[in-house]
């Protein structure tokens, strides 16, 4: 089976979808992810808890999560401040994915196990080659995504039915709102877009969106808008009473400071500033109010006079529309918050994994250096003792030198290991351009095989090299290709450790028809399971236990891709694997053209730094 890995470098650490988790989305531990794998997990602020929250309002033993089948049940352990699920106090609660758990000031999102499919849907759906060929169906209408969202097209019904016209208009607003906010994952952008939409559809003069800050327990303005022509330096003053009403009752309100008094005298109103109307609606999400949207408008005295009375620019229909928009906005805000928390958790997990993995490898290398240096110290000690005795003891002297030599060999090998680790890290982390020079892939193959021969013999693996006869000179970065091949060959040899008659064959091939050169590394080791075929190219995922750094194959793939090539993989568990490093061939013309003598190189005074080089001459 020939398998080509994808070119992306996803940071995947196993199949997370099958593990329940708690993500901290608010609080001091924001971004932390707790995997739920045990039958019992305790939640508290002390370190003996598996879900430890650094929150002074969390009890030492606050709650516990008990596994029951495919879900967890949350039980409060008589905590001081209580446990809340989706904003409601809970003593015992069976959790479902998406539930928000609050302990003290910390808010956590629970994601459960993947639900198993109740039926095999594939058996119930049949895709036939040609629609219409059997039952006579044919396509009678087709509409693009863009056209499908345009509800402004008039039709004969709407012109005679104002209600229908309004309904169509409102539907279009909702549809466009949903579209507009569906692609945005950044909260600030999202809120700005919502405000733009509102100003497009409603004749408001000013508007603002405020989101709840749970830690400070208050509404914080996030976006403010003014219609053109409206004075922007003027502060938007909103009654706290109205805000509290809206949030606590979860009701939208339409307010006006116009007098409803029938004895309202337009003449008197001239000296007043006019009438200000406002709509304030809650942003109701899945579980809770996440904020409010406020818009207002003012009618000038002149306009009132022209219209001979109160002019209501906002009415109940506007209020209904705003409530619907606010709900959509709230769902989108919740999604961006969760996404942000998930991304943060992923990043923290990735950083944590990186640090843990690197620490482990460096610790092992350090242990090796300590061992080697201790032997050198012992050997030098033996040598010093002998130099102070009267009788020369050749055997003892030789033994001392052997000990020193052994120790030095160990130190040297570990120096090489730390160098390899650092170079792999640098290679992986940097976007570097290869530095191609004319070179022969066969030389690279021979060097790597010679370098790895000692290692192969140590674990009784037969390492052979089969170069192609027709390999031309090509243009590539020899150091990079050396590293790429070395990583693959090292893995192949390690895969044969503990395998009887372990064999690794490195070969090269030049495909003239396909214009591609290949270095192939084939082993008869343990092989790679289908699940791991892509995972092994992810960083810090090693199937070599603690021995592998998890950087080798990702680095090799990166190097090949930087050269415009790729790594292909075939493997059968229990039989072995074949890695093929493919390099696009551009046989170097330098072989045909004579090199320029040094005396003919252009002196620096001839170089015009401020002019573009004439590339047409090359």
């Amino acid at each position: 089976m020939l398998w080509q890995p994808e070119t992306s470098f996803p940071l995947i650490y196993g199949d997370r979808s099958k593990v329940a988790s708690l993500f901290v989305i608010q609080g001091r531990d924001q971004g932390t992810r707790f995997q739920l794998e045990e039958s019992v997990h305790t939640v508290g602020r002390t370190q003996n808890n598996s879900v430890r929250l650094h929150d002074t309002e969390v009890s030492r033993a606050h709650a516990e999560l008990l596994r029951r089948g495919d879900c967890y049940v949350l039980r409060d352990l008589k905590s001081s401040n209580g446990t809340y699920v989706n904003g409601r106090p809970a003593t015992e609660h069976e959790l479902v994915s998406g539930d928000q758990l609050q302990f003290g000031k910390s808010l956590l999102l629970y994601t459960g196990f993947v639900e198993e499919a109740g039926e095999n849907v594939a058996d119930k759906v049949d895709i036939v080659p040609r629609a219409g060929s059997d039952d006579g169906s044919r396509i009678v209408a087709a509409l693009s995504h863009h056209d499908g969202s345009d509800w402004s097209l008039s039709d004969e019904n709407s012109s005679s039915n104002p209600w229908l016209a309004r309904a169509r208009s409102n539907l279009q607003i909702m549809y466009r709102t949903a579209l507009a906010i569906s692609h945005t994952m950044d909260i600030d952008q999202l809120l700005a877009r919502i405000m733009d939409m509102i100003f497009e559809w409603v004749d408001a003069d000013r508007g603002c969106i405020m989101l709840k800050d749970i830690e400070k327990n208050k509404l914080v303005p996030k976006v403010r808008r003014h219609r053109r022509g409206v004075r922007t330096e003027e502060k938007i003053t909103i009654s706290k009473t109205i805000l509290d009403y809206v949030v606590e009752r979860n009701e939208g309100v339409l307010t006006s400071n116009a007098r409803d008094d029938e004895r309202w005298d337009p003449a008197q109103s001239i000296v007043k500033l006019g009438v200000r109307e406002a709509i304030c609606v809650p942003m109701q999400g899945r579980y809770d109010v996440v904020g409010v949207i406020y818009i207002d408008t003012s009618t000038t005295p002149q306009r009132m006079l022209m219209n001979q009375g109160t002019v209501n620019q906002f009415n109940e229909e506007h209020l209904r529309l705003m409530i619907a928009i606010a709900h959509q906005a709230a769902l989108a805000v919740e999604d961006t918050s969760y996404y942000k928390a998930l991304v943060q958790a992923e990043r923290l997990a990735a950083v944590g994994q990186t640090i843990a993995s690197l620490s482990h490898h460096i610790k092992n290398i350090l242990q090796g250096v300590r061992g080697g240096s201790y032997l050198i110290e012992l050997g030098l000690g033996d040598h010093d003792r002998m130099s102070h005795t009267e009788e020369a003891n050749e055997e003892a002297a030789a033994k001392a030198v052997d000990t020193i030599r052994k120790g030095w060999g160990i130190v040297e090998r570990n120096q090489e290991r730390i160098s390899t680790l650092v170079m792999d890290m640098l290679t992986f982390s940097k976007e570097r351009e290869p530095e191609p020079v004319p070179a022969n892939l066969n030389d690279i193959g021979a060097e790597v095989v010679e370098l790895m021969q000692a290692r192969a013999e140590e674990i009784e693996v037969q390492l052979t090299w089969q170069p192609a006869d027709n390999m031309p000179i090509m243009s590539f970065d020899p150091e990079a290709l050396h590293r790429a091949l070395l990583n693959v060959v090292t893995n192949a040899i390690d895969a044969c450790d503990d395998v009887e008659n372990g064999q690794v064959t490195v070969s090269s091939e030049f495909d003239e028809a396909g214009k591609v050169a290949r270095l192939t590394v084939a082993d008869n080791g343990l092989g790679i399971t289908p699940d791991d075929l892509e995972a092994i190219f992810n960083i810090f995922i090693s199937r070599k236990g603690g021995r592998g750094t998890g950087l080798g194959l990702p680095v090799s793939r990166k190097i090949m891709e930087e050269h415009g090539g790729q790594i292909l993989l075939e493997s059968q568990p229990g039989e072995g694997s074949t890695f093929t490093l493919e390099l696009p061939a551009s046989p170097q013309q330098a072989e045909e053209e004579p090199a320029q003598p040094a005396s003919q190189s252009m002196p620096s005074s001839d170089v015009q730094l401020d002019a573009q080089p004439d590339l047409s001459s090359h």
Partner: protein
Amino acid sequence: MFSNARILVVDSSAESRDVLCTLLERLGAETIETTRTRHASGLVQQTQPNVVVLDAEDEFAPSAEAIADLGRAACRSSTPIVVLGTQKRHLSPLTTGHFVSKPYQYATLIRRIEEVLGNRA
């Protein structure tokens, strides 16, 4: 203390085994080596070592079962185990082991082995 002592070294790293065995042999001990924890319990029964030195952060991540087998075999013959590496002692299945954190100084490790041999004597 090391004269005539028989020490079983369980470590998949050839380098680590080489260094430790060289040091122990210089002190007069007899060493037996194995790369795999799963072979160690059998070796304990066969060779009756005076102490076992086990790398718990082994490159090949010994299974809990292999470690438990070794623990039982060592218990039956009253063979102490010096465990290298694990920080989470309370999670180690070898609750009666003597722990040396990695990275360790070899002088410290030798002293610990000497103490264990001394206690046994």
